């Protein structure tokens, strides 16, 4: 394993992941420290952010396995988030540096979650993600983001309390906070410890946004600034899904059945409710919940002959994340108010222009799981895992839930095709760059799904 030697402690090495965390923290402090001087600029905070994010990616490339994926993916999401900062719908424009710092805090949270091998570390990651998410949502224009941010915060507090309670029960039972020690919990089957693991998992599930702990996320994703929502959604899922996969595989059978139930209920619930939605942002929020259901299913499904559960889950997050980020990058700058589907009609209030309309088409097709877009490959990977662990019934429910979404995802398609042939557009350079980068990523993932699969593996 690679590492960075610590000059003041001879003989000790710091892992590259920790080095990347340090770099991100330094970047975060730098932005905050300079805030009074650079608060008129949108470029400098974003530039610092992109710099440290790229550094994290470079450090991550030296790592192997999940650590590499975690750093590269988080760094990539951070770059996109910083690019979108230029069109962020902030309540106060001068809060750009704070927003950049909060993005970095969220990124650090995700890295900690992906890397964490200790319940305390995981709790720290969850808290960093939650608080930065709640704050980022509240920074948006108008009353809606404030309300949504507050709800998110309250529900975070409750689920975090659950998580802490679960963690202390685990500690009570095993005398250890290491994730691998959870296996002892499963073997011992002491009720306290079992409930403890369950509660801890529920706390992590909140970041995943699965039923029944999806409420906060649903409202936050609906009302938050489009420029940030994609970021919050993706880093939360990235961190939580991989951490959850690790916890569940550590704890053994105690958690698989509940996670399977959560996954199937979430998929059915979100798909059914999505049919009633008339607002695009709300629809994408429900889509986040439905995809979280798939992630929960992947977490529950353990290893199959073709790959481990963490690999499947990480692969799914990458595919979903690229598409979801692309959707929100295309919507960046559309404010924080309602975004009814009817606004996309020709002559409606939202005119995306050709590049972003095509980006949104691709994103929606991928979210719907249409071949050959990444959403299709990742869905197949999860279904494959579900098939080998749970058999026909669970797979069928998930498959039907996975394909019915096509009806509401494609509702906008004719309107977007009409928009793609028009030339008007109101977009910033940063948002267009982000759209281009993500389109490129989605196309690469579509043509070579094996690439991301290998990246997610060892």
């Amino acid at each position, binding site marked *: 394993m690679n590492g960075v030697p610590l000059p003041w402690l001879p003989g000790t090495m710091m892992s590259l992941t920790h080095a990347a965390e340090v770099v991100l923290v330094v970047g975060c402090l730098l932005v905050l420290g300079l805030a009074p001087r650079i608060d008129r600029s949108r470029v400098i905070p974003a530039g610092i952010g992109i710099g440290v994010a790229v550094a994290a990616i470079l450090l991550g490339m030296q790592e192997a396995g999940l650590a590499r994926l975690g750093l590269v993916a988080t760094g990539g999401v951070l770059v996109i988030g910083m690019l979108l900062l230029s069109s962020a719908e902030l309540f106060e424009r001068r809060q750009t540096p704070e927003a950049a710092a909060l993005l970095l805090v969220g990124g650090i949270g995700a890295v900690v979650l992906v890397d964490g091998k200790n319940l305390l570390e995981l709790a720290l990651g969850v808290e960093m993600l939650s608080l930065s998410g709640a704050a980022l949502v509240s920074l948006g224009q108008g009353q809606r983001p404030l309300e949504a941010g507050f709800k998110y915060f309250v529900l975070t507090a409750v689920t975090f309390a659950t998580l802490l309670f679960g963690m202390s029960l685990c500690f009570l039972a095993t005398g250890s906070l290491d994730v691998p020690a959870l296996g002892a919990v499963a073997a011992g089957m002491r009720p306290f410890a079992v409930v403890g693991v*369950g509660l801890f998992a529920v706390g992590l599930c909140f970041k995943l946004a699965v039923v029944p702990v999806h409420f906060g996320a649903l409202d936050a994703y609906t009302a938050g600034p489009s420029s940030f929502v994609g970021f919050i959604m993706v880093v939360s899922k990235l961190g939580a899904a991989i951490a959850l996969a690790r916890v569940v595989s550590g704890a053994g*059978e105690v958690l698989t059945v509940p996670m399977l139930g959560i996954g199937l209920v979430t998929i059915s619930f979100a798909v059914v409710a999505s049919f009633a939605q008339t607002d695009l942002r709300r629809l994408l929020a429900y889509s986040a919940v439905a995809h979280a259901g798939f992630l929960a299913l992947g977490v529950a499904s353990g290893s199959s002959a073709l790959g481990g559960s963490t690999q499947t889950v990480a692969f799914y997050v990458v595919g979903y994340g690229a598409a979801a980020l692309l959707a929100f990058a295309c919507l960046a700058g559309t404010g924080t108010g309602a975004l009814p589907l009817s606004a996309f009609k020709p002559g409606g209030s939202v005119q995306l222009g050709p590049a972003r309309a095509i980006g949104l088409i691709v994103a929606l097709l991928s979210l719907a799981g249409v071949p050959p877009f990444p959403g299709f490959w990742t869905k197949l990977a999860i279904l494959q895992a579900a098939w080998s662990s749970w058999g026909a019934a669970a797979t069928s429910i998930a498959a039907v839930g996975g394909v019915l979404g096509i009806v509401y995802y494609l509702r906008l398609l004719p309107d977007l095709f009409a928009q793609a042939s028009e030339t008007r557009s109101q977009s910033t350079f940063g948002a267009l760059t982000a759209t281009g980068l993500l389109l490129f990523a989605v196309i690469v993932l579509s043509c070579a*799904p094996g690439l991301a699969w290998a990246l997610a593996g060892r």
Partner: protein
Amino acid sequence: MTTLLPWCFLFPLPFLVLNVFGFPKKPGAASFVGPLAILAAALVWLLGDRQTVSVVHEGWIPFLPDSAFRLSVDGLAAVMLAVVGGVASCVFVYAIAYMKEDERAHRFFAFLDFFVAAMCLLVVAGNLTVLLAGWTAVGIASFLLISFWWQRGEPLQAGFLALGANAIGDAALLVAAVAMPVGAGALDSLATTAPHATGGATLIALCLVIAACAKSAQGPLWFWLPAAMAGPTPVSALIHAATMVAAGVYLLVRVSPLLALTPEIMTVVVVTGLSTALLGGLASLWQTNFKRGIAYSTASQLGWMFVAVGVGAPFAAFFHLVTHAAFKAMLFLSAGTIIHAAHHEEDIRKMGGLRKHLKGAHAFFLIGSLCLIGTPFLSGSFSKDAILEAAQHHGAPWVSWALMVGALVTGAYAGRLYFGLFHGVEGSASKHAHEHAGHLGGFDLPLIPLAVGAVVLGYFEAGTHLLSTLVGKSVLHAAEAGAEVHIMPTALGLGAFALGAAGFVVVGRWLAQRPEKGLPVPGGLLAGTLVSELKVLPQGVAAIHSGRVGRYLLITMLGVAVVGGLTLRTPSAALPQRAGEAPPRPKKERGAKDIAPRIREGVKKQPRIRPTSPFGAPVDGPPRPQKPRPEPGAQP
């Protein structure tokens, strides 16, 4: 040259790009070259040495049982490609005239190009993954084209209906793709690999049949096809009559060796096909929209093909698919001529007496209708005879009887449409048609190849036996080894024709002469209301999200409690299945430490524990609670 054939799905793409950028100026002026090239390539293959061409790239999708990208062209695929290319060429030329006045005609042709590409991918797919890609893509193309005039509202709803129904089929295919045993998935070897799957051959066969039903509008998934008529008529002719809806039959023919292993699934296919053939035909009788009437006729004819597959006669099914593609596309396109001439009027009650004004359309419609009822010496009768014969030889007797009834119904709906449109009193819309009668050459020209096909395809097959040889080579089928088509109709075929002709002239004409020109039963009984009622469910579920934090908190805490409870319940169920660990043993009381609580519990509780203890249960007689038996190893 023939090695290019598996890549023929790329042929329409250059024209798609041209259309996107608005070239050539006249919409669609170049697009027909794509399908024509596909037709040419397929014909070159058919005239050559007919070697199966395959493309395999291993390791493309490492997380699936079949990790390869496979394309494959055999006889079955080549004929299907020829059908797709041939019908599409005619429809493309027809659409140049039909869409002349539409301002977004370039986009229309781009969508059509996309559809042809997707359809060819579906045909040349060598494994389930690639098939799934084509399968979903044709569904999306169909949605885009049905809802091409989306701003009117109704076409968009129809498009959603089609998407939803097709999605069920996609889900079934997804399950089939992941349910394969590792290393299997190639379509031509399913019969040998699928039985090794965890769920067995039955599950995979069932999945494929569900997928086929969704695409071909069979059984409970019929409802989207009539609604799909909201799209432009060339689309109805190409996608919803000749090619895409036939994809279900094509798939079943291709996997018929697998189906032959599962008799119960074969029965499902027969019952589904028969019920759709009869009910679809009957439903056609009360459609005031004559395009929907033809759509129900398509569903009904596809039902005939399903029956043929179900009785173990894939050749008969595929032969009917080919002839049906020609004459049904022709029927639809001549209906399109009427619609165009009558200013987009599709109500049969406003038509009538059109044979004087639209002579070309009349001739084509008549040929198509005669093919439909199985008139001897037209191609429709050859393929229908093949199905009837197969049903008589291999199916249960009731299948043949039901098909005879089906022939009568076919005659009735064909006759109602023909007489209702072209004979009788002129309706209000007929007057418009009169004004347009002069300049419809662009409409009639592309129908000539289809008409030729509808007449000669049967003779071609009777003379060369090309199709039966090719199908036999692709899907070896014992039951049908010697299937041949003869020019002289069989007695069975003549009987069916007699019934069909009676239905055509007597029932159909009588219906056409009624004031409402059909059965007075309200149409759209189920589909419309059911779907609108279903909207309540999503609204109810979404209503949980009231925005009130209190409620959110309550549900969250309840959920946490449920999950906590689930974790507590799980161990007892899950533990015994853990690998390498014996199931929890019944308590063995070895030492005094273990037995002590038992003794303390006293006499009263003893009987309840006894039966579960391997040592405790008395061999005979009731338990003797008053005298606790000393446990082995216990200190007295």
